[in-house]
């Protein structure tokens, strides 16, 4: 787990009292199964990797932001995508759980379909880097959520005072709040700013 120093060079995130961490899933797979390759296949393997991620997050505090790196994973099957992506997200969406935010890195074409399918099946959404520097909202997002996410992603952050201007229609503003509730956008408790998750992990990419 890479933990960067605070004040990581990204401007305008001083109100985000979280140290993002990067978790290399390929490395976790190699530790979990005896294989020359980083194949994330079979449900028990996925479960073991998810539990390893959860263990790493257990000391991360009340709020955390993790960059889950799938770049070194060669094969990802549906069972593992369900465990490592869908169930990981579900685990932290409950009321009595820490506020954990996730960005998935290395979701290239070979992995994308599996992740999209398991997210849709469980009515979840996730932020994923699908090409270097290009982020997408995957899963089951409502139209308003999708529009709000695209606007926020484009701007990087939106000041509390700029919300009405940036999201002129009320549906998009509701969508923005839904994104925060679904943990694919971050709203600072102290400043009221909305942050795109991709910007918060920029220094880890």
């Amino acid at each position: 787990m890479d933990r960067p120093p605070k004040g990581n060079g990204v401007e305008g995130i001083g109100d985000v009292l979280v140290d993002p961490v990067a978790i290399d899933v390929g490395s976790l797979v190699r530790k979990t199964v005896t294989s020359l390759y980083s194949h994330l296949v079979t449900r028990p393997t996925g479960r073991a990797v998810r539990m390893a991620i959860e263990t790493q997050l257990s000391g991360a505090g009340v709020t955390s932001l993790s960059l889950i790196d799938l770049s070194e994973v060669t094969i990802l099957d549906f069972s593992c995508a369900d465990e490592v992506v869908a169930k990981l997200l579900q685990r932290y969406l409950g009321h009595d759980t820490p506020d954990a935010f996730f960005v998935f890195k290395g979701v290239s074409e070979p992995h994308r379909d599996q992740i999209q399918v398991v997210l849709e099946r469980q009515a979840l959404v996730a932020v994923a880097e699908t090409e270097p520097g290009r982020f997408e909202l995957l899963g089951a997002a409502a139209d308003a959520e999708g529009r709000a996410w695209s606007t926020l992603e484009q701007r990087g952050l939106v000041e509390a005072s700029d919300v009405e201007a940036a999201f002129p229609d009320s549906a998009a503003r509701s969508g923005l709040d839904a994104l925060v509730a679904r943990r694919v956008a971050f709203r600072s408790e102290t400043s009221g700013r909305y942050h795109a998750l991709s910007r918060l992990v920029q220094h880890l990419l």
Partner: protein
Amino acid sequence: MNVFPVPASLDHQTVDELLDSAATSSEDHTLFDARHVRWIDPNGMVGLLVAGSVVGERHGGSPRLELPESADVLGYLSRMGFFRAAEGIFEFDGRVPRRASSPSDVLLEITPIRANEDVHGVIDQVQNRAGTVLASTLGYPATAVVPFSVILSEVCQNIIEHADGLGWVAAQSYNWAKRLGRHVVVISVMDVGRGFRGSLTDEHSARYGDRWGDTTALEAAFLHGLTRFPDSGRGQGIQQIRRQVQRWNGAITIRSGAARIAQVPEWDDSPPVVDDLEPCPGAQISIILPAVE
């Protein structure tokens, strides 16, 4: 003694005949007469293992297998790892050929599936060979090795998660020049476990009432993604396999118990459902992926 003549061409079209025979064996001693086998594919080989296991389980001891007279067929069985997989299932009548030490042209030798490590082994094994076969023989994109591996992984996990019994997987490419005018890859995954109905009965039979049986159990899993697990993340494996096979214009059939269900493209005239087979333990899955036209 039961004597079962093994069809001269033993593949996805004739393996039901063999399994039906095994499912109805009534004598303590059984001989599978494979002397006249001239052609056999992964469905035939893995089907033989299933048939031998079913007879052995039913009557105790190992049935006898009279080996093919064709040296080519014997050599091919050896290259596919049949004799190694069949140890303990059959007693062989005839001389088992030695395995060649040279590199094999086999896409995936017959591999027993008992635990998740076996699935990892299968996925590791196919990476290099599958990439070449899928791209140069079938004309699929270079990235097709990923969905191909995902299919193998999900279909093998079906044995571990649902069958509660031993199973095998094998795959090979063929030139179906006469049959289809194209190359194909044939994948066979079979087990001798509890079958789809056995896996689903506790959770789902009540809602089907009198209609519950092998056919409805297959439809529940194959068409509707039902699974014995309450977790909503389960049951998508077979659905996604069907989807990917359809994308490649391939065919998939699953036999379980006395029924067989199929998703077939226009080049395959297999019926979508067959429900008058002899009740055979486990599940037998065949996937055929054709070359791009």
